[in-house]
């Protein structure tokens, strides 16, 4: 299932009209952040969702997309990917706007009680409430561990591809054994606008985590001498006279170190979460997690709620289902900030015509 990244629209709106004004900003598009959209939606609270990844799903997508989850109530088994897709389908009626590939850098409470939220891409919000569903932090690329190689970051060493055109016609070394490594390898080897001059794929073993079809295709291309695959690990590098990264030392499983010339080095070791700036937002913290009450899952700053793995309270268990419960109560806790005049009643999606309207479904006729 595809989610439209509306951030381009939002950014345009932002540049013309200042910050995006909204009822709620949700930080984190993992399962709990997504379900927070649902619970807010039932109470007719509109939300914008921010995530550092380029896609929704959080840990479910980044750490275990294909692994089975057995403890979602009424779902005997599903994968992280299926859970994410189902949640996206469930929240579709509420039209939340997603802002991917950016981290929240600023959260300030203003005198009028609203929050000024700003991201690393400069997107700004004025929100009545903030929901931190940040899990165990934002996902960062795992680095190549060779002393001194970081000097080439973003000139010749890349952990992600933002602009494929800059690799066209170049001699590439790609390191990694997952889908990102294989997908980009195939992209740069095959005919197309970004075809590289040469591609060498390096992985520490001859076993891949990537989709079997991609691996088969890669082996086919090797046999056709369109590219090379080497088992080994990058262990060092050499510079040319201009100080540029010119050669990579690759130590094979046979213990022999070979020297490979290159223009660009692409490393795909996957991503791992880092708690990072959330710990510096001035919210009450215990062991790097946000302290909340168990009535509304609100932090010590009124109007900022924390749900899912990021929060802590007596008896906390880091389960997706606990996060769902927290999201429901946090939504009710937030309603008075958004609708100070309105009395908020609990209604059931089975019987409430009002909820049927917000969900965009027919009201069933009972016999």
């Amino acid at each position, binding site marked *: 299932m595809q989610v439209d990244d509306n951030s381009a629209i939002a950014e345009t709106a932002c540049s013309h009209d200042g910050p995006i004004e909204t009822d709620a900003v949700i930080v984190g598009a993992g399962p709990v952040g997504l379900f927070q959209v649902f619970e807010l939606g039932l109470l007719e609270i509109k939300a914008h969702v921010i995530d550092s990844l380029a896609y929704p799903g959080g840990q479910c997508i980044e750490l275990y997309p294909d692994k089975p989850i057995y403890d979602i109530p009424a779902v005997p088994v599903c994968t992280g990917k299926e859970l994410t897709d189902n949640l996206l389908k469930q929240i579709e009626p509420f039209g939340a706007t997603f802002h991917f590939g950016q981290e929240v850098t600023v959260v300030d409470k203003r005198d009028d009680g609203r929050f000024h939220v700003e991201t690393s891409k400069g997107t700004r919000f004025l929100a009545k409430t903030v929901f931190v569903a940040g899990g*165990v932090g934002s996902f960062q690329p*795992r680095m190549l561990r060779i002393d001194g190689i970081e000097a080439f970051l973003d000139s010749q060493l890349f952990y992600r591809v933002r602009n494929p055109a800059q690799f066209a016609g170049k001699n590439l070394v790609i390191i990694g054994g997952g889908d990102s490594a294989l997908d980009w390898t195939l992209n740069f080897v095959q005919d197309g606008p970004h075809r590289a001059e040469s591609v060498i794929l390096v992985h520490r073993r001859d076993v891949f985590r990537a989709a079997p079809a991609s691996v088969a295709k890669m082996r086919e291309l090797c046999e056709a001498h369109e590219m090379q695959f080497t088992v080994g690990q990058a262990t060092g590098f050499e510079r040319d006279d201009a100080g540029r990264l010119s050669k990579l030392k690759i130590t094979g499983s046979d213990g022999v170190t070979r020297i490979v010339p290159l223009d660009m080095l692409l490393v795909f070791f996957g991503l*791992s*979460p880092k708690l990072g700036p959330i710990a510096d937002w001035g919210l009450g913290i215990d062991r*790097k997690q946000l302290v909340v009450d168990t009535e509304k899952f609100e932090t010590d700053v009124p109007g900022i709620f924390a749900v899912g793995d990021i929060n802590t309270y007596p008896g906390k268990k*880091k389960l997706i289902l606990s996060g769902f419960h927290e999201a429901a109560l946090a939504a009710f806790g937030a309603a008075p900030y958004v609708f100070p005049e309105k009395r908020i009643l609990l209604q059931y999606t089975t019987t409430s015509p009002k909820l049927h309207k917000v969900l965009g479904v027919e009201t069933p006729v009972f016999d």
Partner: protein
Amino acid sequence: MTHVVLESCIRCKYTDCVDVCPVDCFREGPNMLVIDPDECIDCAVCIPECPVNAILPEEDVPNDQLPFIKLNAELSRNWPSITKRKAPPADADAWKDRRDKLDQLVR
């Protein structure tokens, strides 16, 4: 609760876990790592990273490994923080399938 580094780590110390820890709670001894129980947030990200399956949540620690809960707490007080992966000892592979390594632990 916390996660605990067990006996399998002794003389192996592959340090893959260190890279993925979101809160930098690993501490490094001469030939083993431990987890600081006051820093660990039980995210479990490190468990699948360990090539010798040396990390478990406190609740799942088997009986013969229970002393390591206390040992992690004790040793983490004096050992320095490690936040970046480094090369394992040269003979790590020779020790990775060995049991009963507690007598090898260097404090």
